């Protein structure tokens, strides 16, 4: 990420709105600079970081646009890999051996009878090195002497400019105290990154679908306008670009502004393409198999249910549950059954899953639980949800029968489809027993 002094000069304030001055990715003169720097970095392969930084300084010359050039160079440096040279002994030990003999000079005198060359030669000999090699590795642990081994992704000039714009966009969040986002898909990835960057959220369903989510940190309610989480917001931002449609409002306190300002971004802002990896469609083979068997036997015209992936969220206060599947009755969209597959998981994950199921208190949730797990039906005794245990894989016939029963019990008998009522079920809110302090890799 860019350092704040590379962001600050590009912040623009209009009234109580903050904007970041992005660059035009198609501007030929900017593309040329991007191309030059890309070329320069490749040219400095296997050379030291200090040499590369010196080259950037030289390239910058008297150019007044140095904030831009340094920004591009920072993006390149961050994406590249610099590694320390290998040394026969840790560099600090080498230095101890050499410096124990100093100070020494080019020519000897009465108090310094040994010369610099002689000291170096002696230490180098003991290590089987030449003087030049010893000199080169003496400070091998300084970043300045790290060598460029991998120049990072192969970017076109406009791709580099786009990435620079992204870094500017996220950099403005360094001064954010809280942010609000609106999204309508890809919840699972979103929650994953919210958890990963240790942010706190509060979500509400929006009219017309999607969710409105407030993000801040644990201490935010107690310390007004804290900027403690600014870097976490900035780190998180690219997760938002994984969504198709999104809006972001950030409440920011830029260094040159007075008081709180609004900083907005949305999916129409070009060049904000996420470099975060979208997770695969299915978390497990079990889920993939279930989906494909459903399509084969019940899909299309073969049944009246439509299967969608992780398209609904159960809001449980400060945590959520994103069920694996949602079955929607194509004849009456109000009739929806959620399905969660509980496969082979770590006991801690399972414990939280069961707590969430209890907390969700959700009658239209069907759990398909692998029988080999350390969990019995008793665990779900008081839960409102329905449970089916399976041995190897869920039996689709049994699942569909249960779903029909559930739908009938919850929504009443199926009638001829009635048009008009498009009201969505909003999931219940309730508190959950999730302990975020003990979270693992499977936060949901």
């Amino acid at each position, binding site marked *: 990420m860019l350092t704040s002094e590379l962001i600050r000069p590009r912040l623009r304030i209009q009234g109580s709105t903050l904007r970041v001055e992005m660059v035009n990715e198609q501007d030929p003169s900017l593309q040329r600079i991007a191309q030059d720097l890309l070329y320069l970095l490749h040219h400095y392969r296997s050379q030291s970081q200090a040499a590369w930084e010196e080259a950037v300084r030289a390239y910058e010359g008297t150019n007044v646009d140095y904030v831009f050039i340094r920004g591009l160079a920072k993006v390149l440096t961050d994406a590249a890999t610099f590694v320390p040279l290998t040394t026969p002994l840790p560099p*600090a030990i080498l230095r101890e051996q050499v*410096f*124990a*003999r100093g100070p020494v000079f080019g020519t000897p005198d009465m108090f310094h009878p040994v010369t610099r060359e002689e000291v170096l030669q002696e230490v180098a000999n003991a290590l089987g090195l030449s003087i030049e090699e010893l000199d080169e590795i003496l*400070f091998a642990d300084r970043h300045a002497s790290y060598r460029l081994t991998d120049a990072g992704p192969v970017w076109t000039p406009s791709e580099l400019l786009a990435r620079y714009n992204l870094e500017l966009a996220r950099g403005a969040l360094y001064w954010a105290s809280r942010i609000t986002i609106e999204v309508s898909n890809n919840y699972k990835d979103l929650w994953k990154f919210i958890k990963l960057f240790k942010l706190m959220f509060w979500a509400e369903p929006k009219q017309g679908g999607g969710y409105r989510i407030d993000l801040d940190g644990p201490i935010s309610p*107690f*310390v007004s306008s804290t900027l403690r989480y600014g870097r976490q917001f900035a780190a998180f931002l690219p997760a938002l670009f994984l969504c198709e449609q999104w809006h972001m409002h950030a409440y920011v306190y830029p260094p040159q502004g007075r008081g709180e300002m609004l900083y907005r971004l949305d999916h129409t802002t070009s060049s904000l393409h996420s470099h975060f990896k979208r997770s695969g469609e299915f978390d497990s083979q079990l889920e993939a198999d279930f989906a494909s068997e459903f399509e084969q036997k019940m899909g299309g015209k073969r049944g009246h249910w439509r299967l969608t992936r992780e398209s609904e969220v159960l809001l449980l206060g400060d945590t959520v549950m994103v069920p694996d599947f949602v079955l929607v009755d194509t004849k009456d969209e109000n009739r929806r059954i959620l399905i969660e597959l509980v496969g082979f998981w770590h006991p801690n994950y399972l*414990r939280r899953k069961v707590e969430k199921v209890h907390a969700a208190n959700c009658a239209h949730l069907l759990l398909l639980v692998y029988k080999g797990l350390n969990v019995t039906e*008793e665990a779900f005794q008081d839960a409102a949800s329905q449970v089916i245990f399976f041995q190897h894989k869920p039996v689709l016939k049994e699942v569909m029968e249960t779903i029909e029963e559930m739908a009938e019990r919850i929504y009443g008998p199926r009638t001829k489809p009635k048009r008009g009522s498009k009201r969505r079920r909003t999931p219940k809110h309730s508190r959950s*027993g999730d302990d975020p302090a003990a979270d693992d890799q499977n936060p949901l």
Partner: protein
Amino acid sequence: MTRRGTLDFAMPMNASVFFQGGTLVLQHTDDIEHVPAPFQFVKSRWRCEAYHYHAVLPWMQEQGIRNAVPRWQRLALELHDTRELHEYQIQALDAWKEARGRGSIVLPTGAGKTLVATHAIRHINSSVVVLVPTTSLVYQWYALLMNVFQTGIGVYYGSEKRVLPLTVTTYHSAGDLIAEYGNAFKLLICDEVHHLPAKTWGEAALMAPAPFRLGLTATYPEEHEQTGERWRLDELIGPIVYTQRLETLVGKQLAEYRTQRVRVDLTREERDAYEALYETYLGFVRERGLQRTHGAGWLRELMRLSAFDPHARRALLARRQLLRLLDSCQGKLAALEALLREHAGERILVFTESNVVAYAIARQYLVPVISHETGVAERKHILDAFQAGHYSVIATSKVLNEGIDVPEAKVAIVLGGGASKREYLQRLGRILRKKEPLQAVLIEVLVRNTIEEGKVQRRQVPRENC
């Protein structure tokens, strides 16, 4: 139905409290009728700032709430320190214990606050985090705790982040440390605690559940410095438990010393380059009358202009090159070499304006270098070895400027005249801290007929104030 495994999923959950990012959070509170302040119902849970831990503990115990907050360890620390506490230090320590290990001790600079702190740590004998204002003080505490307790010491700042039961951090980095590991420390020590009321400085203390707290300072903040948006020490640390005034304690801080100036010339080529850069730089400043229009802030104005005015940009670059030229000109390095030869066997500190020159000197004369990149362990090694006489010279950039004792150094060579008055005094004080009745010497190497000479004249420091 067979019950498999041992997980009791169906058991009703008892209320418990855990630590989350600087807050205490209650869960499974359905059976609790009334949750008192300072807990607030925020985002579907009862929460409060973690520093309330000691205050809410009795209530939680009374309610039988399971306490999952403490992750601190009991330690078996021993003091490997032969220094005896002075009477006033014992009084200070007793007063703090009397106050149930919460509050600030106010002692003048040099009166051994850190020594009192080590005894407080020994008394609690559990994990401790120390907050200090600067990285220099991180090093100082690191070395002190390592020597006193003969155990590994964690540091958490900038480039080094290693958390151990005894960890030293800066106020700047403390927030991140506490958010993650706040409940791993039973005792919170805030050095230079007068900084704490400032908005972002106090957050870490607010976020830490540590029931024991010790503030150290020579200048306790006034009442009006703790109002409005600022934090109150009373609340975050506790009251003042002990105060001792200056006069009675310390004698004269500085030893006798003399200063010496060595003037060197630029070579012909250097002089030509210097004049050209000088003209580009000051020519612009004069032409625009920056000093007239912006007074003391003229340099800042030049920097602002340089982001869009090519002439200003060139002037600023010329200034940078000019300072670099002066810092590493041949005459200075020749003078340095002569001085190093002349003071053979004496303990010498060499101060440079830039990192680049400090490292160049290290390579040239094969002497250790300390910069902001030097990790705590190597830094301690260098200073210890210097003290023991294994190293006689240390090259350093501005790092050694604050708060580090190098009492053995008797010669300081300052290359580069860019030092501000404050910096100059600190460098002086460093080598001159009273150790033995040996006269110390501060040698400043300046380039004749350059801006360096002007700077020195502006900086005439009256001897009696030093």
